[in-house]
């Protein structure tokens, strides 16, 4: 193994694996490409140009929406539901969807990032109406809680974890637990249950989706000042496997390690999806293409309003509205609108909104994102179990000793249990202080090597089975709920309109979730609609 390969594998997978992998350098690379995100926008914005739109390239709209991710599409969906038709969605990429994008393959679709949504609580009426519109629900149970249709509820076996040569059911590793591990796990559950059941004076829950509806009682908000790792040790929770479990949860939901995540966010993960103590957390709705199903649904409703490959390069607030300038194939066009919904990542605001820097209502740079890469592996067949009684392929398959998050099996939910499949492999760059830079320093071949070397710990036949790997490098994947962000007051300021610009992005929740994007999309649309009526 040459030095740079060892360096690569050490960077991504750690020294022990890099050493072990020496023996098994890939005999053959599958086909594949780096896909997705255009880097052009960043370059253009950094040049800090002024944009002169030719006079007859202007048009007028009631509302313009920047960004065709979940937030932008949700806003569009809401506007149309309320009878507003004079709007346009401007999307930078060739396809809408943002971090909920997916691709339709010959056997099944597969996601490029977001892949599931927990069934909401009954209070989340707007989301329930979307799910009903999509026929994902089967009415309500005796308590009036929505019930997912069986074919969309994540099929068992849901998760398995690979540890020392074997797969085990579930995510928390029970095999080989000591009595102390068990005690700590029970203690952790007990603490979680306390927060699950807790209500503040106004009857608000401590942790609930969306974040806007959580209690702001200092008892909780102070949890945002420490890391989740600190919280665990303050509570005497030192068990290695419990620590791993919490670390996994943080990496999976936030792209951060347990010692980088705010304790508030860590607990949010465990508490916000549990109705009351003793009941299971809300089941997941999923389909092969993941949350791409919502994008596709929105497109059936508002697809005619979505303009793709439209890079918004400048937003100019004016006396009676906003001017939006887009660049496409070197051509500048302008839209004059009364209101603008800004559903692109928040950190971009100062680069795009003219004058934002001078009287900044909030520090946009505080909205920090982390980097991920996601690989879709086309397999001609399933990996063979090492022995007959090993726990079988699940929906989510996690490798205990890996800094990656393992992979999700696209065919699982469809009951397609034999033959070709697609695995979606997730890798958050949280082990690296300059993760984004590191990620973009490596090319397709190197990232493919990382992915296959990692998976070959559990599947020795992965090299033979994989026919193609496409890799998405998400430079700005998820907002990072590090300590002192969610409850620092900055989100509240960003949620308020800036002149006629209404921000709407999952960033505003402080965590990257479908429900947050949806909530803020609808909220921004509603503010505009209320303004129209009043």
């Amino acid at each position, binding site marked *: 193994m040459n030095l740079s390969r060892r360096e690569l594998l050490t960077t991504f997978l750690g020294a*022990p694996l890099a050493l*072990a992998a020496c*023996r098994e350098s890939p*005999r053959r690379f599958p086909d594949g490409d780096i896909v997705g995100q255009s880097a052009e926008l960043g370059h253009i914005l950094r040049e800090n140009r002024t944009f002169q739109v030719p006079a007859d390239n202007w048009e007028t709209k009631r509302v313009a929406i920047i960004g065709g991710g979940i937030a932008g599409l949700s806003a569009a969906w809401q506007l149309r539901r309320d009878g507003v038709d004079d709007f346009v969605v401007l999307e930078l990429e060739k396809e809408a969807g943002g971090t909920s994008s997916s691709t339709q393959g010959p056997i099944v679709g597969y996601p490029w990032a977001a892949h599931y949504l927990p069934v909401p609580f009954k209070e989340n009426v707007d989301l329930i109406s979307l799910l009903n519109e999509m026929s994902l629900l089967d009415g309500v149970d005796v308590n009036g809680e929505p019930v997912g249709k*069986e*074919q969309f*509820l*994540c*099929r*068992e*076996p*849901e998760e398995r974890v690979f540890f*020392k*040569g*074997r797969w085990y059911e579930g995510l928390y590793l029970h095999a080989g637990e000591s009595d102390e591990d068990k005690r700590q796990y029970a203690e952790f559950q007990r603490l979680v249950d306390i927060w699950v059941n807790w209500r503040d004076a106004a009857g608000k829950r401590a942790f609930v989706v969306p974040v806007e509806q959580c209690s702001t009682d200092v008892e909780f908000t102070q949890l945002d000042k420490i890391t989740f790792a600190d919280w665990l040790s303050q509570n005497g929770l030192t068990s290695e496997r419990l620590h791993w479990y919490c670390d996994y949860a943080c990496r999976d939901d936030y792209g951060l390690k347990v010692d980088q995540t705010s304790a508030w966010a860590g607990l949010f993960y465990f508490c916000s999806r549990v109705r009351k103590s003793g009941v299971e957390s809300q*089941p997941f709705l999923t389909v092969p293409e993941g949350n791409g199903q919502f994008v596709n649904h929105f497109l059936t409703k508002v697809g005619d309003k979505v303009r793709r490959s439209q890079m918004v390069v400048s937003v100019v607030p004016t006396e009676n509205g906003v001017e939006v300038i887009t660049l496409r194939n070197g051509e500048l066009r302008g839209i004059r609108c009364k209101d603008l919904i800004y559903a692109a990542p928040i950190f971009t605001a100062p680069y795009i909104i003219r004058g934002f820097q001078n009287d900044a209502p909030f520090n946009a740079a505080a909205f920090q994102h982390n980097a991920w890469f996601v690989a879709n592996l086309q397999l001609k067949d399933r990996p063979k179990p*090492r*022995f*007959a009684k090993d726990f*079988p392929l699940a929906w989510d398959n996690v490798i205990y000793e890996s800094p990656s998050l393992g992979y999700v099996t696209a065919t699982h939910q*469809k*009951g*397609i*249990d*034999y*033959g070709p499949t697609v695995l979606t492999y997730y890798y958050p760059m949280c082990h690296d202080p300059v993760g984004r830079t590191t990620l973009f320093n490596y090319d397709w071949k190197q990232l493919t090597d990382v992915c296959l070397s990692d998976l070959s710990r559990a599947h*020795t036949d992965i090299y033979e089975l994989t026919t193609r790997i496409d890799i998405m490098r998400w430079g700005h994947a998820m907002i990072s709920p590090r300590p002192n962000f969610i409850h620092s007051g900055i989100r509240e300021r960003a949620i308020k309109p800036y002149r006629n610009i209404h921000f709407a992005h999952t960033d505003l929740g402080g965590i990257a979730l479908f429900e947050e994007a949806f909530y803020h999309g609808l909220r921004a649309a509603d503010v505009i609609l209320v303004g129209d009526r009043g």
Partner: protein
Amino acid sequence: MRRPSLLFLNVIIIATCGLIYELLAATVSSYVLGDSVTQFSLIIGVYLSAMGVGSYLSRFIDKDIAERFIEIELAVAIIGGLSAPLLFLSFAYLSYFGIVLYTLVFIVGTLVGLEIPLLMRILKDKLDFKELVSRVLALDYAGALVASLLFPIFLVPRLGLNRTSLVFGILNAGVGIWATWLLEPMIPTRKLTLLRVKGFIVVVILAIGLIKADSLTTLAEDGLFVDNVIYAKSSEYQRIVVTKGKVGYSLFLNGNLQFNSFDEYRYHEALVHPGFAAFNGDAKRVLILGGGDGLAAREVLKYKTVEQVQLVDLDPAMTQVAYSVPALGELNKHAFEDPRVQVTNTDAFVWLDNVSTEPFDVVIIDFPDPNNFALGKLYTTRFYNLLKQKLKPDSAVVIQTTSPLIARQSFWCVMKTLEASGYTVKPFQTSVPSFGIWGYALAKLQPFDTPTKPPENVELRFLNNETFASLFEFPSDTSKPDFDLEINRLDNQALVRYYETEWRRFEQ
């Protein structure tokens, strides 16, 4: 002794083979057990220490050194040569794989450890000590290098583990035989011949192993099945084995008995005819899900009114068995050659989800028991709901639902699942000697009376008017448990868990 220098070639080959066996053991064990760091370091440790033991033991060999040397070389050849296949087989069938593994590594290590000291003693009179030690040890280490380079670059990718093992065994034995010529002056002629015969036998055994490397699995199966294996095939989905015994043919899938020709008619008559009895009128369109052996189809085709039989079975290899084993073709009365039968090879779940057809009058469901999640989905509310799209209000469905005696909860879990999916269900059971007490569900989308007689004008060996009604009676030990059972859904797979616990009690 002839040409001592040629004996040095022996050293390099012994060293190469020795290290190959060691690498093989480590690779096989990390392949099947995982955790390669541990496996490699343990195997290397055990092997090296065993070599030490061998070297020590060499002092106890005083006489006939040349002869012993060759015998040891042949022993290494046969044990080392068979080591990889032996390890694979013992992993598949023995629970104490670790013991076999380390014993094998220890034996090979000890034997290899014996060889070098003996060889040095054979050569000691030909060379001075300085020369001897330097040449033998240098070649020994060079051999190790050859092995460690060949192994990952050429042997594993090109030959695979089993063949590498066998090929090196043969090489090893070949060198042993060759040594009988090199050391001829040191061995009495009579013993020489004997040694050559032994060497020849070792080579033959290993060569047979090499030719049959693929059928080694079958070899292992012969020991597992009581009767003679007359057909064995690993399809994409399962291992299919047909055996022939005194009372008839048996078909096994992954080692689980599917039927014995001696009493399968009991099982298949009970699977098919209650459905026809419950359908009002003449059944024309019939759907069979599973049942790739064609035996359910045979029963269905007894009805002259049936115009179309759609059979959906996952495995094309299953429907082929009837052609490959003529006795089975006869047993299903060549059902697949009947123009009324159409066979589709796909997963029934995916088929129900994706293919739209006219509804069927009678549906026969004959899947393997729900012993894994891929099979468990075929017994869920989702599956039975998908099935509804293929039914008319009056259609009758019969489902095999495992043994209500051995797996009582599993059996009643399926009944509850059917009810939860909106079916009216009449559970029934019968006795099939090869299986024991076996259970079924007769179900319809509307309430119906339990049929009391089998349909008229069909030739039956088992069912008759007198006893038909008693199929639907359950003695106390198989009746519905009085505690609550879960409904089997895709998102809980409760049935697989019931089934696992209940059948595990019967595994050794």
